[in-house]
Structures are given as C-alpha cells and as structure tokens.
C-alpha cells in the first residue's frame, strides 16, 4: 500500500510538472506572443506615457522666455526641499523695481517625483518631463539650474 502511494505521488508530481511545461512550451513555440521589451535596445521606439513624472523641467519658448515669477510656492510645497529659488530685484523699463528669479536650483538627487510643485505652480512655469535616465558618475551633476542663462520672464505673466 505504501509503495503504491509512493509511486502514485511521483506520477502525479510528474504529471503536474508536465502540465506546467506544456504552458512554457506553448509560449516557446508562439513567438508572436512574447511581451518582453528589450529596454536599452528599444530606446529609439520607446515612448513614455504623457503624464510620466521623470524630472522637473522649465519650458522656455523660442525667445528664451519662461513663465516663472519667483513666487516660491513650489519651494514651499516641496516636501523634501529639492527646490531652491534665488530671486533678485530687476529694474524694469519704466524704472520700477520688480522681483525676478535669478537661479532656479533643482536638486534631482533629493527629488522623489511626487509632482506637488507642478500642482502648486500658479503660472504653469514648471512641468514634469518624461526623461528618466538620470544616472551620473558624480553627485554634483544632479544639481541643476533650470532657467537658461539670459532668459527672462514672459511679458504679461504676473
């Protein structure tokens, strides 16, 4: 009785293994059903989702103008202090002094891509970009200045 049970279990195990192997065999012979993406090789065709949060970007138009007024609501809303805005006083054409941004410092190494800064921005000056390959050899390269040199505030944005 014991021997019968012993061999019975072995046969059942082999049968269940073969059921699994059949499934593997099915996908082995149906190559059109393969779903894996070979990531570094498909860079040319890889398209990230539109809303994917990869990094904070500040779009500039063709006249090198951005929309950041330096109100610092992004700096306040950031939970881990990865945004630092340094402002300056700029003399306008009509002689009045106004607050403008000097440098918009973005610490990518501290950012958790929560997207709260973009949500808080009243002028949609910053957006979340799709770029996700941020590897660098040294940490200092992860500290970025988002406003381009010589850029200025777009007219009409307050």
């Amino acid at each position, binding site marked *: 009785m014991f021997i019968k049970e012993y061999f019975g279990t072995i046969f059942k195990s082999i049968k269940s*293994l073969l059921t699994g192997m059949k*499934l593997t065999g099915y996908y082995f012979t149906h190559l059109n059903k393969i*779903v894996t993406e070979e990531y570094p090789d498909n860079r040319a065709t890889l398209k990230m989702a539109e*809303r*994917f949060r990869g990094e904070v970007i500040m779009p500039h138009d063709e006249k090198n103008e951005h929309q950041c007024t330096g109100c610092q609501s992004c700096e306040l809303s950031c939970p881990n202090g990865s945004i630092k805005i340094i402002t300056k006083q700029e003399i306008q054409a009509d002689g009045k002094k106004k607050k403008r941004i000097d440098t918009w410092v973005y610490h990518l190494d501290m950012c958790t891509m929560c*997207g709260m800064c973009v949500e808080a921005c009243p002028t949609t000056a910053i957006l979340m970009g799709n770029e996700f390959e941020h590897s660098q050899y040294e940490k200092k390269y992860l500290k970025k200045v988002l406003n381009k040199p010589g850029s200025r505030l777009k007219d009409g944005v307050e």
Partner: protein
Amino acid sequence: MILGEEDYITEEGEFVVNMGPQHPSTHGVLRLKVWLDGETIKKVEPHLGYIHRSIEKMSESLSYRQYGYLTSRMDYLSAHINNLACALVVEKALQVEVPARAQAIRIVIGELTRIGSHLLWFASAGLDLGGVTPFFYAFREREAINSIMDENCGARLTQNFMVPGGIVYDVRPDFQSRVKEVLKQFKDNFHEYNEILTGNVIFQNRLKDVGILTKEDAIAFGCTGPTARASGLSCDIRKMYPYDGYEKLQFDEVISTGCDSWARYEVRMAEMLQSVRIIEQLIDNIPEGDIVAKTKNVIKLPKGEFYQRVETARGELGVYIVSDGGASPYRCKYRSPNFANLSAIPHIARGYKIGDLIAIMATIDLIIPDIDR
C-alpha cells in the same frame, strides 16, 4: 553585538543561524535569527531596524497635503491604498464630502493596486519555493496594470494620486477601455497561474500543513488581511467598516478555515478575482462631475484625535493623527499590517524545518519597509 545568555548553545547539534538581512527570500532587509536543532527550528527571533526612516516623525514637519506621500514608501506595493488612508483621515476630520467621481476612480485604482500586489506576491512566492517560471507570467499582467498607473497617475509604484478631498487630476479619456482590456487579459490568463503553480503537486506539498496559524492565535497576534482570513477570521475592513463608497459594492469576503500556508495561498488567489468583480461593477458606472472637493489652501485640522483604517493588500492599515489645530500633525502613528503579521512568524515556525520557514514567509507576504517605517 553582545551575546545574551540564550545565545549560547546548550545542546549538542544545536546552532544559531542568521537569515538575512541580505537574504533573497526575505524580500528586503529583515533579519531572522534562527535557533536550529539539526534542521528543525527551535526558535525564531526577528530583528528590525535595518530600513527605519522615521516616517512618523518626518510627518510631523509636513503639511496635511504633503505627509501622505511618505506612506507610498511604507508598503510600496499598495502605495495608492496607503495614500487613500492619509487622505481619508483628513476628510474625516474636516467632514468633507468627496465627489462621487473621485470615489469611483479611487476604488478602481485601489483594486487594481490590490491585484498588482497579489500578482507580485504570487510571482515571488513561486520564486521563493524554487519555481522561476511563474514569475514571468505574473509580471506580464502586472506590467499591464502598471502601465495603466503610468498613463493615469504618472508613476508606476509611488502614484501619489491623492489629495484630501479627491484626486489630483482626472483620468484620461481612454481609462475605461484600457482597464477593461487589462481585466480581460487577466481573466483570460488566470488559468495559466493554476496550471503552472497551483496545480503543481510539489508546490502543494511544500505548503500544505505548514505554518499552522489557528484562529485564536491570529486574533492574539493581531493578524489582519489575507493572513488572518485564511485562519477563518472575518476581518475585511471593506466589509466591517466600509469607507469611501465600498458599502455600495457587491463582493465576497474570502475566508478559508485551512489555517495553513496553502489556505493563505488560496485566499489571495481568490481575492484577485473578487477585486476584478469590484472593478467590473464600477468601470461602466463612473459618474461625471468634479474630481476634488474644495478645501482650503492651507489645510488645518481641528484640535483632537482622528483615526481611519483601510484594507490594504496585506491587512488593516490604521492612520492615527493627533492635531493641535496647526497645519501639520502633532503626532502621526501608523498601524501597519505587516508588523502584526510578522509577530506571528516566531510562533508558527516553531517545530518546522528551515525550508518551511521560507514557505511561511512567502505566504505571509511581508513587506519589510512597512514593518520598520
């Protein structure tokens, strides 16, 4: 490390082994100190603290809009449901009415998270017990779910899709058709999981009658979620204390009385199908309307204590907030499901072989960052 009296080996053939903190089957940095007599486990002692980030303390310096994002880093596989708990406690304190559209979308994405979490558990349980192939089949569906998250929430794991009062932005117009597509793919392929892993006699023999957690023990250790439901304990928060619109939905609470690892396996497999049922009820009936209720720019909670519990993929998560009327919590405490479930391991592993400890840990489905916080 100072050795205590109990660390000395008293009997011949007895020895102490460290499992972890860098052991592939602990899925993280959990260190289990195991006292062995030959291959038989005499005692297990979990050592924590390898991934402690003091999330509760950090929450005290963040606003009520910000503090939820840290919970995505606790139980990272049900990040959306953790964020929901944080949003719900604020809504409860402010007595905000959440728009019906936001509620429906929250539940759909929450249940998708639950399916995704259980799929990863299925994959890693197979992997722990020596079957590498099921991993790829489970990840095929998980990838489809993750791409829905990617398109609608903006991230695959740490969605951060929640604000107190609703959701951050509306879902894309193709949300409904995409979810239906993924659910169809999941249902069509579900039989493959049964073929490759559930029906496998070797896998069954490793789980059956291993790690018996009786109903009394489950209550005593405070186990929740599928772990406790496999011991016959009815503890689904969605049924017992319905929140966020779950009371309108039809679904069964999966309960098994097997008490062993195999019962825990079956409960989780059946729960995935229940989640599909919930989503199918909602996906065609997402009401139109607002996605977020109006709240103040700087949210201030009234003075007092607030508690809210939700059912994550692993059990009951409780958020307890003490407010002094300010813009950030005075004290924030999380009751995490994995911490309670971990406390059952030393009890139920005693007397089994060291290989069975892997099976017990695989079916209890521990997420280590949730234990340490």
